[in-house]
């Protein structure tokens, strides 16, 4: 086989594409367990709330009322944010990086694969959340049909679901990118990153302007009134963080 000749003919994208597809498949497969755990927990929370509502119906006294504010969408988004941020942090550990580099991959594909799979993973988690929410709505309607003193209020409709889905996806992208970027730099140099964090913390305690700066950053994202601009800010920041994370990854040595 004349590989030397083959390699010299540039425009050889097949290896890049194969490696990228395989790496994304690897990431999604290795997070299968997280998906199952998340689905079970969220489903359990919803069922638990339903059961609580039914128990209240059965055992409550006359003229009393109770409110169960629930929402698979609400709980699901919070759970996914935490899980995804932690997963992104863990993904940057040496052990996980070594696992990723067992198969043929270069650092560009590694970074790009992480970015693409963070989008796909977030999307999958939010879809699961949405499906469980549909289940919740169906069950709510069913119980409302059966029990006379069960009032079911569904605040979810297409005009808030779809924008909410995309805003939630955008926020997830930001959280994942922030954790990932932090993790990459922390793994590269734990001492320097810890020292910087400690320094910023001490500055924030001592002077007002660092606190103000932090509040301004918070406001930049969370006080934005326009959905479109908000999503733009979130996605833009996520991409910048991924690019920043690529800087140390570019020359990273593995299995050292």
């Amino acid at each position, binding site marked *: 086989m004349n590989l030397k000749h083959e390699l010299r003919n540039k425009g050889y994208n097949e290896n890049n594409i194969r490696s990228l597809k395989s790496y994304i498949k690897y990431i999604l497969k290795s997070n299968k367990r997280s998906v199952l755990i998340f689905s079970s927990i969220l489903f359990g929370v919803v069922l638990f*709330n339903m059961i609580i*509502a039914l128990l*209240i*119906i059965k055992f*409550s*006294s*006359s*003229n*009393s*009322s*109770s*409110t*169960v*504010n*629930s*929402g*698979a*969408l*609400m709980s699901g*988004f*919070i759970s996914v944010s935490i899980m995804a941020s932690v997963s992104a942090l863990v993904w940057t550990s040496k052990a996980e990086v070594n696992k990723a580099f067992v198969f043929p991959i270069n650092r560009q594909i590694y970074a790009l694969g992480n970015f693409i799979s963070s989008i796909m993973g977030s999307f999958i988690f939010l879809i699961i959340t949405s499906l469980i*929410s*549909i*289940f*919740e*709505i*169906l069950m*709510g*309607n*069913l*119980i*409302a*049909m059966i*029990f*006379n*003193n*069960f*009032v*079911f*209020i*569904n*605040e*979810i*409709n297409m*005009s*808030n*679901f779809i*924008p*909410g*889905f995309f*805003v*939630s996806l*955008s*926020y997830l992208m930001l959280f994942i990118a922030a954790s990932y970027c932090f993790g990459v730099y922390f793994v590269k140099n734990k001492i320097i990153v810890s020292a910087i964090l400690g320094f910023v913390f001490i500055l924030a305690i001592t002077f007002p302007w660092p606190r103000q700066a932090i509040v301004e950053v918070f406001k930049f994202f*969370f*006080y*934005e*009134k326009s*959905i479109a601009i*908000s999503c733009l800010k979130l996605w833009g920041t996520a991409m910048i963080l991924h690019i920043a994370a690529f800087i140390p990854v570019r020359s990273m040595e593995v299995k050292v």
Partner: protein
Amino acid sequence: MSRQNAGKVKTLSLVIVIIAIIMLLVFLPMLYYATNTELSESNTNYVNYDELDKIEIDASKPISLDYSRTSALVKLESWENNYLKITAKKGADNKLRAEITRNEDYNKITLTDFGISSDEGYVVYTTQTWLPLLQFDKYRDSRFNSRVYECTINIPNGLSLDVRGNRYYD
């Protein structure tokens, strides 16, 4: 042994998928009805503001509480085939009551409160929408932070609904 286990897992998965499909087939039409009923003249009860006191309405059709002064709209639905009672109270300023469904172009009115009176205890179960929508005004009620833009309240037979709201301007 491992083949047997694999077989069991496959059977269980198949059973779960079949149950899920049956559930969807049975309840999706109901959900569709619940969320997509359109208000049109022929299939709507129109109730004027001045007439509100205790009114018996054909509960098989959606109800529109139409306040002629403000043209606000309230959409209520009932699953029951019996009559639905509505008790509406007038406010001290004699202005609008409530709007749950927002009109597209005028009279921006948001839900501020609702209450349900009943001779028995009841449970109100609310499914809330996505958390990040909190930051956007149009998805958030400024007074009660109820995150309601549009919602549908299913009122079972026998309960009275009292709905209140405020009118505001940009």
